[in-house]
């Protein structure tokens, strides 16, 4: 294991300390492991809280700031945060207009946020929850844990964060969030496994000529192994299952090509070029694009594609100013 770390069990807290040192716009509670805005939003606005296991940076702590999240709870590496963290964050950011929890669909995340929401409700805070579940590699069914929440989470936090900044109420924000969650689909592929610091060795072995297709963001193996393929074929493997699952030919689409942590930008751009060609061939209008490593899986080499159906309202929120360490544009 070759990593810039000290003690494997202290990685999360030490990385949060570095974030705090780097970003005066953030306030980091190192005990509770919660990242807050240094300047909370005004009273009467709905607050957004997200969180999850660590190792996905910049998600979620890097998305705290004007136009996006109010707080992010950092769990152990690849382990969801505990209800105490989420409750503390929820109480801290509530401005009297309620709090929206943005949760990725993993059993642990869902349950820990659920317990925190129950506790917050008992404290008189109005909490609504949206769960993202956009990974088409997993078959959807009410009898299973369902699909994983992946790339659409980033887009949702941006879009709903902008709407929250404008003063929308909890009900309409929740409806907007559900609309985003339902309109997004993702698919990922890995060239190498990541290494969990506490484990000390790669989660799986992958030969030089193989890749994992249909991965999530926790260094887990995918749905199947395939021989390593040229970029244009991999692009096809990403786009096809998404289009098989949902129609993106009507209206506009936001395309998000995400790096898994160890993929250099030159390769991401090359992949995006291949994806863009296929999307154009399929008659899909890409209105906005995001290419970069925004939702990572430690030092895994790989990428995921997310497509999101976007009407004019969504695009307007997408274009609205955002000022976080991980995503920043506009005023």
């Amino acid at each position: 294991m070759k990593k810039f770390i000290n003690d494997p069990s202290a990685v999360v807290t030490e990385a949060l300390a570095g974030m705090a040192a780097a970003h005066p716009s953030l306030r980091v509670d190192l005990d509770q492991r919660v990242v807050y805005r240094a300047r909370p939003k005004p009273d009467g606005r709905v607050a957004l809280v997200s969180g999850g296991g660590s190792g996905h940076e910049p998600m979620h702590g890097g998305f705290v700031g004007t136009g996006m999240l109010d707080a992010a709870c950092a769990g152990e590496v690849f382990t969801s945060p505990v209800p105490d963290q989420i409750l503390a964050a929820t109480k801290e950011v509530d401005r009297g207009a309620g709090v929206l929890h943005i949760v990725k669909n993993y059993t642990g995340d869902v349950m820990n946020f659920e317990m925190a929401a129950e506790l917050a409700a008992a404290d008189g805070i109005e909490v609504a929850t949206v769960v993202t579940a956009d990974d088409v590699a997993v078959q959807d069914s009410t009898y299973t844990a369902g699909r994983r929440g992946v790339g659409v989470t980033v887009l949702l936090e941006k879009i709903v964060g902008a709407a929250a900044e404008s003063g929308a109420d909890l009900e309409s924000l929740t409806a907007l969030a559900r609309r985003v969650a339902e309109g997004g689909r993702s698919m990922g592929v890995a060239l190498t496994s990541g290494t969990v610091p506490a484990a000390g060795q790669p989660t799986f072995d992958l030969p030089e000529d193989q890749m994992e297709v249909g991965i999530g963001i926790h260094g887990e193996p995918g749905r199947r192994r395939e021989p390593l393929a040229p970029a244009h074929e991999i692009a096809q493997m990403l786009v096809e299952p998404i289009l098989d699952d949902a129609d993106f030919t009507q209206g506009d689409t936001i395309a998000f090509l995400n790096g898994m942590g160890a993929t250099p930008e030159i390769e991401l751009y090359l992949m995006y070029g291949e994806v863009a060609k296929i999307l154009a061939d399929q008659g899909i209008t890409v209105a906005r694009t995001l290419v970069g490593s925004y939702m990572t899986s430690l030092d895994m080499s790989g990428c995921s594609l997310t497509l999101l159906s976007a009407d004019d309202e969504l695009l307007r929120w997408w274009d609205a100013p955002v000022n976080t360490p991980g995503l920043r544009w506009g005023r």
Partner: protein
Amino acid sequence: MPDAWDVPLLTEWLTGFRDAVDQAGEELTALDSAIGDADHGSNMRRGLAAAVAAVSQAPPADCGAFFKTVGMSLVSNVGGASGPLYGTLFLRMGTVAGTAGTLAIQLFGECLQAGLDGLVQRGKAQPGDKTMVDAMLPAVRAYDEVAADGGPMVSALTAAAQAAAQGRDGTTPMEAKKGRASYLGERSVGHQDPGATSMTLLFETAAKVFA
């Protein structure tokens, strides 16, 4: 020795479970590596260390308080899926136990049933989904059968532990429908469920307390 739980015996159970998980930690993590994310051992270790510390720092006044302290410690220190699941299990046992100083065979059975109900309500797993439910459900059934015949406790717990182990072994051929293993689809077949494995340790330790 009375045929009922009290706070000292519950404490013995908890520390015994902590020791068993400490010893099996590598195995639990290895099982979780194959079909999950390689942390069930470290999750349970972290949570049980906190639970043991909590009950020894402020010894609970009654059985209900004991279960609640354990449940809250697990919820607050584990995270992931097993934190809320084991946590809810103990919290619900605490609700039924209330201020009782001892739990005889009947009342303890009601505690177990409440814990199982809480676990299923929280996790929504069906039997056969390849989860800890596949160990706990048969364990509670087996306990109830012996309890209906009047006990004693050691027999009920021993029957429960055996049923749990059988249930645990039964998870191997299953295709997972809940938890992270479900993302693997058919690739999950042929691996024993880590949560069912730790759950079996819980019942085996309970039987030992009365043996």
